[in-house]
Every structure is written in structure tokens, then in C-alpha cells.
């Protein structure tokens, strides 16, 4: 019997591995913000949560976002608050950064930069993968 199943019998609930895959730029569509809301909700259920940023999703983490001019909420500081919800596994695809002329130091939160192949392995090891 796995650890997760044993915990379930003790009433603590089964812990599954959830990965949220963020592929959209912020502000242009609602996906990035909605994805972040779901991540924060998931934190309340004591699951093993990780976030992956690929494609235009890496733009969500860019430093220096100033949204006053477009009268939208700047939700980028919330990524730094994830740590407080015990969400500390943030993965960024190196290929996505490079294709956009970006580097790890351009990001506003500590992340693990990894190759597509490494990220693919992590994805394959999840119980649940949810894309935004």
C-alpha cells in the first residue's frame, strides 16, 4: 500500500501530484489570472502542487510589470506569495525563455530552469496535469 493510500485511511486525505501548466501571456487573455486563482485554491487542499511555465507563460513571471496604464490588476506579485502557501516548485522551460530573449534573472521569483526533456519527465510523473 502506498503512503498516499495509508494517509487516506487515516483520514488525512490522499495527496496527489498536481501540475499546473501555464502557457499564456498575462493580461491579453484571462487564462494566466484564472490559472493563478486555481493554484491558490489548490493550496487549501494540501496537495503536492507544482507550476510549469512554458511558451508565452514565461511572460507571466517577468519583472517590472506596471499595469496602471491599462487599468488592469497587476497580479505578478502573487507569484512571490506562493511560497507562503507552500507552493515552491516553479519550473520554467529554458527553451521558452531563450526563444523570447529572456534569462532567469529577468524573472521576479525563484524558479528552476530546465530543458524541455527534463520538464517532460516531470509532467509524465504527475497524477493530474491542468493546463491554462
Amino acid at each position, binding site marked *: 500500500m502506498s503512503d498516499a493510500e495509508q494517509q487516506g485511511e487515516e483520514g488525512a486525505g490522499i495527496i496527489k501530484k498536481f501540475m499546473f501548466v501555464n502557457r499564456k501571456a498575462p*493580461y491579453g487573455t484571462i487564462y494566466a489570472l484564472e490559472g493563478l486563482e486555481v493554484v491558490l485554491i489548490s493550496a487549501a487542499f494540501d496537495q503536492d502542487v507544482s507550476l510549469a511555465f512554458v511558451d508565452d507563460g514565461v511572460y507571466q513571471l517577468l519583472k517590472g510589470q506596471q499595469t496602471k*496604464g*491599462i487599468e488592469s490588476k497587476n497580479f505578478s506579485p502573487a507569484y512571490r506569495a506562493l511560497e507562503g502557501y507552500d507552493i515552491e516548485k516553479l519550473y520554467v522551460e529554458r527553451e521558452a525563455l531563450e526563444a523570447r530573449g529572456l534569462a532567469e534573472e529577468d524573472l521576479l521569483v525563484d524558479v528552476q530552469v530546465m530543458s524541455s526533456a527534463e520538464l517532460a519527465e516531470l509532467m509524465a510523473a504527475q497524477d493530474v496535469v491542468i493546463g491554462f
Partner: protein
Amino acid sequence: MLHIVNKSPYERNALESCLRLAQPGSALLLIEDGVYAATRGNAAEARLKDAMARLKVYALKADLEARGVAGRVMDGIELVDYGGFVDLACGQPNCQSWL
């Protein structure tokens, strides 16, 4: 003609189609997620640079600032505010949004 592109060059081919079909002497305004095309080192940089020989290219400043890329704009692209957006639209006989 004022061409308006609001999609990321990585996500849609709106910019690509616009650059293919825009006539010399037209203006191109990048707004919303379209402004990522105006940043140095992006995938569309070379194509946009080529196009700048025949098109005047603008980008909306508020959208660059919102996305944290106002300091990464390629040389030769003029930044405009919302008033400048209106001036561009009024200054051209017509406009086309590449949604």
C-alpha cells in the same frame, strides 16, 4: 492603412499575415500581447526589422509597461500613448485589426 496587431507572435500568425499583406508606406501598431513582437531577441525580430524598411512601426506604451517589457523595445519602433493611438487611426484613410 493602419494595421493593428494585438496577438503574441508566438501564439498566433496575425503579425506574420499582417507583414505579408501590408503595403509599403502603411503604419503598424502593436498593442496588447502584440507588443511582445517589439522586444529585442524575440522570434519575430528579424522579420519586423525587415518590415520596418517599408512600414512605420509603433507600439502602445501602456501595454509594454503592463508586461514589464518597456525597457526591451527594439530600435526604430515609436512608442505611443492612447492619444497617439487615436491620432494614428485618424491620420490614416482606414485601419485593419488582425485579430
